[in-house]
C-alpha cells in the first residue's frame, strides 16, 4: 500500500519527477486552488488585493489548526482537543496581554507557546501511558481544556499587544503579499521543514505507517508519539495566538477548528491511518475550503448550502481517495 507512493524521500538525489509524483495530491490541490481563484475573479471582478488579504487572515487560525492536526495524524493518532487548546491559549494570552507593554507581550507569547507544548505533552502522555484510544483521550481532554479556558475568562475579553495585531494585518512590501500568509509560511517552514528532514520527522512517519515495524527498527514509539502531540500542542498554541492577534480579544468557547482541521487534513491528502501526506497539502486544503465559502457568498448561494457543500466535499474527497486505494489493492 505504502510502497506504491513513498511519501518520505530519503534519497540524496531528488529528481523533479519524483517530487512531483510524491506530492501529486498537493499539486493537484494547488491546481484546483488556482482554478478556484480564476473562477472567483470571473464571478466577482472586484476580487483583488482586499480579497486576498481577507482570505489570508481568515485562513490563518484554521491553517495552523490543520497543521497541528496533520502532524498528529501523520504519527497515526488524532487530536480532537485542538479547538479547545486554541481557545485556552487564546484566552490566556489575551488576559495576560491586556493593558501591558509590548515587551511584556513578547514574554506572554513565549509563555503561551510553552503552555501549548505542555498541553500537548499532557495529551500525549495520557494517550501513551493509559493506552486508551487517542480519540477518547483527546475528546475527554477537549472538555478539560475548554473548561480551563472558561475558568481563565468567563466571557470574551482581554486584549492583544499592538505588535501582535500588526503582525497579521496588512501586507509586507508588495500589497499582494499579506502579512498573515508570510507569518504562516515562515512559522511552518521554521518548524516543519527541519523536522521533516530530521531523524525525528522520519520516526513520526514511521510510527504512523507501521508501528510494529517502527518499534522493531528501534524507533522509541511511545516517546515519538508524545513528541507528535507536543508539536500539535505547539501549533494549536500558535493558532490560539493568531486568534488573539486577529480579533484583538480572547474567546473562551472553542470554535469549529477541531472538526474543520480534520476535514482539511483529509482533503489535504494526509491519510487518517497515518504515515502519509504532509502539512502543506493541509494548508492548501484550508484555503480551498475557505475560498469555496467565499465564492458561494459571491454567487449569493444560501450560506447554509455552503455548509452542505463543505460536508459533501469532505465525504466526496475521502470516498474518491478510498476508491483509488481499493482499486490499487485489488489490481
Amino acid at each position, binding site marked *: 500500500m505504502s510502497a506504491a507512493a513513498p511519501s518520505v524521500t530519503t534519497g540524496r538525489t531528488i529528481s523533479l519527477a519524483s517530487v512531483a509524483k510524491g506530492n501529486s495530491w498537493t499539486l493537484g490541490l494547488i491546481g484546483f486552488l488556482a482554478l478556484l481563484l480564476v473562477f472567483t475573479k470571473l464571478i466577482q471582478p472586484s476580487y483583488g488585493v482586499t480579497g486576498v488579504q481577507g482570505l489570508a487572515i481568515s485562513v490563518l487560525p484554521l491553517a495552523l489548526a490543520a497543521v497541528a492536526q496533520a502532524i498528529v495524524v501523520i504519527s497515526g493518532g*488524532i487530536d480532537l482537543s485542538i479547538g479547545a487548546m486554541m481557545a485556552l491559549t487564546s484566552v490566556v494570552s489575551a488576559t495576560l496581554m491586556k493593558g501591558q507593554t509590548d515587551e511584556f507581550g513578547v514574554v506572554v507569547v513565549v509563555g503561551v507557546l510553552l503552555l501549548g507544548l505542555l498541553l500537548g505533552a499532557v495529551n500525549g502522555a*495520557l494517550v501513551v501511558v*493509559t*493506552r*486508551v*484510544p487517542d*480519540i*477518547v*483521550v483527546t*475528546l*475527554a*481532554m*477537549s*472538555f*478539560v481544556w*475548554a*473548561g*480551563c*479556558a*472558561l*475558568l481563565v475568562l*468567563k466571557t470574551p475579553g482581554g486584549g492583544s499587544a499592538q505588535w501582535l495585531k500588526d503582525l497579521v494585518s496588512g501586507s509586507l512590501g508588495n500589497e499582494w503579499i499579506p502579512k498573515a500568509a508570510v507569518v504562516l509560511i515562515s512559522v511552518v517552514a521554521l518548524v516543519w521543514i527541519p523536522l521533516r528532514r530530521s531523524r525525528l520527522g522520519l520516526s513520526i512517519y514511521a510510527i504512523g505507517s507501521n508501528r510494529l515495524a517502527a518499534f522493531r527498527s528501534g524507533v522509541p514509539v511511545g516517546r515519538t508519539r508524545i513528541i507528535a502531540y507536543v508539536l500539535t500542542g505547539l501549533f494549536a498554541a500558535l493558532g490560539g495566538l493568531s486568534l488573539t492577534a486577529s480579533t484583538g480579544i480572547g474567546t473562551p468557547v472553542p470554535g469549529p477548528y477541531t*472538526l474543520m482541521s*480534520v*476535514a482539511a487534513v*483529509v482533503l489535504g491528502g494526509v491519510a*487518517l491511518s497515518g504515515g502519509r501526506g504532509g502539512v502543506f497539502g493541509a494548508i492548501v486544503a484550508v484555503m480551498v475550503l475557505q475560498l469555496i465559502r467565499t465564492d458561494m457568498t459571491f454567487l449569493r448561494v*444560501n450560506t*447554509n*448550502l*455552503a*455548509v*452542505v*457543500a*463543505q*460536508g*459533501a466535499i*469532505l*465525504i466526496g474527497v*475521502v*470516498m474518491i481517495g*478510498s*476508491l483509488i486505494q*481499493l482499486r490499487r489493492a485489488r489490481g
Partner: protein
Amino acid sequence: MTEATATPSARSPWLTAARWRGLFRDQPLIPLLGLLALLVVLTWLLRPALVNPGWAGVIVRQSIPLALLAACQTITFLTGGIDLSVGAVASMSGFVVATLVGPAGLPLAILVALIVAGLAGVLNGIGVGVFRVHPLIMTLGMSLVVLGLANVWQLAMVQTGAGVPSTLRDLGSGTTVTLLPNSLVVFVPVAMFILLLLWRTGFGRLLYAIGDNPVASRLAGARAWQVLIVLYTISAIIAAIAGFILSGLTNTASVTLADSYVLPSVAAAVIGGTSILGGRGGYAGTIVGTLILTVLISLLSALGFPEAVRQVLFGSLIVIVAAAYTRVTDAS
C-alpha cells in the same frame, strides 16, 4: 465461605487484584452500578434535601435523550465505528416535526422526520460500508450536510413558524407519577429492542464479529457492508427518536438543539464499557454510564460548581474510567 475468600487474598494479594480485574472485565455492570450508587450516596451526604423521588424522576427524565443518543454510539462502537451525525440528525428530526405538525399533523410529521433521518443513516452506511470512508469522517461530513439542509429548511419555514406539539411536550417533560417520566414509554421499548438485538439476534452477533475481527468475519461469510448500512440506519432512527423527546423535554425546536449532546453521548458509551475499537461492550453498561453522567452533572451543579469546573471534572472522569477499562482488559 468467608474463609475461602479470605485465605487466598491473605496468601497472595495479586490474586485478589486479578479477581477484581476479572469482575470488572466480565461483569462491568457491577462496578458501574457501584460507582452510580457511590455518586448517589455522595449526593445524599452533601445535599440531603436534594435526594428524593422527585429528583430521581428528574434524573431519569434527563437521562433518556442522552441514553438514546449513547445507544447510537454503542452499536456503532461495536463495529469499530462512531456516529457523530446523531446530534445533527436528532436536532433536524425534532425541528422537522415542530414545523410540519401544523400543516401535516403529528403522525405524518413524525413519519417524514423518520424517513429523512433514515436516509441520512443509509448514506452513512453506504459511505462506511461500501466506500470504506472512515466512520468519523463520514458521519462528521453527514452532520454538516444535515445541519446545512436543516438551516435551509428553517429559512423556508420562517413564515409558517414552528411549535413543539403538545403531545411531544407531554412525552418529553411530563411525568405520570413523580418517579415515572412519560418518555419511558418510548425509551423502554427502544432499549429492549437494542438489548435483544445485541443479545439474541444474529445481526447483533455480526456487529460484535465485525468489530472484533473484520477479516475473520469476512472470511466467515459476513457481508459487512450490508450489516453496516442497516446499522447506521438504525442509529439514525434512534437519533431521530431522541430528537423528538429532546424537543419535548426542552420545549424548543432548533436545528442545533442536540449538538451539545454528541460528546456526552460518546462519553456515556465509553464509561459504560463499550470499546471504541469494537467487539466489546453492550447497551446495559451504556444506560448505567448515562445515569452516572447525569447524576454527576446534577451533583456538581447542586454544589454550585461553575460550568467550567464541571467540564474539567467531566473530561477527567472519562479518561480515568477509560484508563481503568483498558488496564483490566489488556491484562487478560
